[in-house]
């Protein structure tokens, strides 16, 4: 028996009021202002694994590594100096994803989108720490640009989301699309893009910034991503 500790019965209503609002299914709040947003069909062939990873399910860890190895490997090849650097980075990234598994929020994007975001951030951090921004163009000879995302595995993102993202990219001004394509899909730095396009560095940055802001706002309008910036 536990000393003086006693239990008080309180009503469910009182408890709910203490606990605040409950999560409700797939409904989500648009962070730009609290309005409800249509959610595009995010169904893929696979269930999300991160909740199970966060819960300590080791079989889910194995499945998670198998499912996302190509995606993460592809990003690392674009942004690392050599295979050894690549392998070290990929290991760091998977550990970080495991550590942050409980932060995945399916209302803000598909699991693959979360994985890709964490991966790119870690790779950028590594680049900046190692002062390797003057590197060659990653290991792009190891990448298949012709096959596109389909050859990496369509099930990572729903066809609905892929089509909307492609359409949003097509809607950009040509120079914005070109700069962003080099930065995102080829992992090129702004210096490399400026040199390749023979364009002033400031102009490259301007195209990239404005293009990405336009893409962000468009994808949020379409409900592909659940967040949109701007003033409160």
């Amino acid at each position, binding site marked *: 028996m536990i000393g003086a500790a006693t239990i008080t019965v309180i009503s469910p209503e009182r408890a709910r009021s203490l606990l605040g609002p409950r999560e409700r299914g797939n409904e989500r709040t648009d962070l730009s202002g609290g309005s409800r947003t249509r959610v595009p069909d995010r169904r893929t062939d696979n269930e999300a694994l991160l909740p199970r990873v*966060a819960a300590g399910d080791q079989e889910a*860890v194995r499945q998670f590594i198998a499912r996302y190895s*190509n995606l993460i490997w592809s990003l690392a090849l674009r942004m690392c100096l050599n295979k050894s650097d690549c392998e070290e980075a990929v290991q760091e990234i998977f550990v970080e994803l495991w550590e942050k598994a409980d932060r995945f929020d399916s209302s803000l994007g598909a699991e693959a989108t979360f994985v890709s975001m964490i991966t790119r951030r870690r790779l950028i951090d590594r680049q900046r720490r190692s002062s390797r921004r003057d590197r060659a163009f990653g290991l792009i000879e190891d990448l298949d640009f012709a*096959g596109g995302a389909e050859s990496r595995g369509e099930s990572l993102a729903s066809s609905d989301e892929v089509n909307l993202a492609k359409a949003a990219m097509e809607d950009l001004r040509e120079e914005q699309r070109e700069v962003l394509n080099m930065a995102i899909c080829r992992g090129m730095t702004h210096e490399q893009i400026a040199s390749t396009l023979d364009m002033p560095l400031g102009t490259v940055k301007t195209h990239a910034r404005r293009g990405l802001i336009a893409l962000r706002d468009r994808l949020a309008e379409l409900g592909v991503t659940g967040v949109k910036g701007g003033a*409160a």
Partner: protein
Amino acid sequence: MNDHSSYMTRIDELLAEQALWGLDEADQRELDALLAEHGSEIHGGADASADSFGLTIAQIDLATGPAPKSSMPDALMSRIEQDIVNRMHGSSGPAATISPARTEDDSAPEIAGRIGPNTWTPWIIAAASLLLAAIAWLGAPTTGPQTPEDLGADRSSLMATAADLVQINWAALEDPSVTAETTGDVVWSDVQQRGYMRFSGLAVNDPTKEQYQLWIFDADRPDAHPVDGGVFDITEDGEVIVKIDPKIEIHEATMFAITVERPGGVVVSDRSRLPLLAAPATG
């Protein structure tokens, strides 16, 4: 363009560039200064705004990015899996669940899930053997399983040393797992990031069907998103002490809640079964 839209546009530009390439020192200083002054005016906060660019880039990459010509090496995949499994079995990390340590046999922290034996490579087994040999030679690790007596002593030590100690009795809600005889409390220190729960009369659960999960409410976080405090089982009647295992730092604990969830716990609880709550008295 007025001043407000001007600096909000500038914040967006810098966050966009940060997501694409990272910022140089001068731009990072400028962004930090702008966020310090105007960050509260951004919808959802600066982190959400930064995430919006990260998610956008990720979405475009998923739709249009290239595929590797050859897959990630199998040896690397095995190494990564084993690295994570080892971390899961360690004393820290988000995946380690907690158990009430009622007897010596079941006092080891319970880890949900299974190890995939097909991925164990010989060198890993050899390394594990060496580690076990070293542990046997050096004695038990200090972070190993705790007996009920250890937990009771640790709890007493916390109560004696934590100047900021919070102690709250559990309040029972309507749930089959609690009765009029259920008693207990929670003690917690924000400074030490340590705490213990005591239960007596909380129903024994079948871990293959459901588990108890602790949620810690932090003053710095919305109530809709409490911190996962760990999954645990009640294995026997009588007094049980459970060490609290928050997955992330708690800045100012304001309330503790126990829910009943599926085995392994959940990331977001629907709170449909909420047997116990420890909240400070109000009014």
